[in-house]
């Protein structure tokens, strides 16, 4: 790691390495609670597939497979840019690092725009059973409502996490625009990166669970 990079030691830690490890452990612990939150939704999808396979397949064939796949690629690229930002932070290259974080946020926004378009198509194609004033396309298949609603809850919850991630990226990029940020707070970039990679990881489970496995 470059000599222009470091962490400001907090008084409760013995040394910088201990502080770094504690921050990582804390973030992993938080992310595991998030994993369990999403796992409840994933296991629900699996139960619906076992209980109502035909209804789940009918819904899955209405989902926009190509938008889901494109969004997966977008998040993979965004994760790569975040990894580049982390490596640049370790080398003390603050300005290009901040640009990479803005690039990561931009890919996150692109993901949300595609997701918004997908929701619009779902609306136009009457695949919104929770809207009582709209006709539902699969009205003769009551069990399909469960999976369609689960699709909106899961992707909506993921989108909320992505919005938080984008906000974190923008705040970190703004903080990193100040002189000497990496000399005191390099580990904040690593911790923010962990969160972003986790959002990517969750989508890598969402895509096959909703779009792929039930086709």
């Amino acid at each position, binding site marked *: 790691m470059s000599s222009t990079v470091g962490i400001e030691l907090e008084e409760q830690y013995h040394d910088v390495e201990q502080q770094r490890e504690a921050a990582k*452990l804390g973030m992993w612990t938080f992310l*595991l609670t998030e994993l*369990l939150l999403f796992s409840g939704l994933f296991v629900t999808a699996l139960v619906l597939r076992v209980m109502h396979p035909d209804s789940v397949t009918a819904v899955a064939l209405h989902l926009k497979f190509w938008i889901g796949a494109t969004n997966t690629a977008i998040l993979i690229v965004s*994760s790569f840019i975040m990894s*580049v930002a982390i490596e640049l932070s370790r080398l003390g290259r603050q300005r290009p690092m901040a640009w990479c974080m803005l690039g990561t946020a931009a890919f996150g926004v692109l993901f949300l725009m595609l997701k918004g378009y997908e929701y619009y198509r779902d609306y136009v194609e009457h695949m919104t059973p929770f809207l009582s004033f709209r006709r539902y396309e699969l009205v003769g298949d009551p069990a399909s409502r469960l999976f369609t609603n689960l699709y909106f809850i899961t992707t909506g919850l993921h989108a909320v996490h992505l919005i938080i991630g984008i906000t974190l990226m923008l705040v970190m990029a703004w903080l990193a625009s100040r002189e000497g940020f990496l000399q005191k707070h390099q580990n904040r970039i690593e911790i923010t990166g962990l969160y972003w990679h986790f959002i990517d*990881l969750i989508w*890598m*489970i969402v*895509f096959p669970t909703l779009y792929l496995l039930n*086709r």
Partner: protein
Amino acid sequence: MSPELRQHLRTPVLTLFALLALLGVNVLLGIFFIGGHAWIAEGFVAATMVAIVIMFAMEAVKDAPITRLFAAIGFVWVLILFGLTMVDYVTR
């Protein structure tokens, strides 16, 4: 690009290509193998992608043993959740 930076970017670049290739495999499976038992292969590919993200993007391989233990235990909890739930539903 400096040789130092190039060295630092080796793992992220390999991770990127590995993930995009595996996504490509899953997309092809989704297009050409609708129905049947393709879900087994698709699930395996997705699990491999998740493992790559954890090990190399989130750098679990470089973390302290206690952090790796936490990460592993989290997934054990998920397996318990899936295991206990599905034992009920598939044996009804």
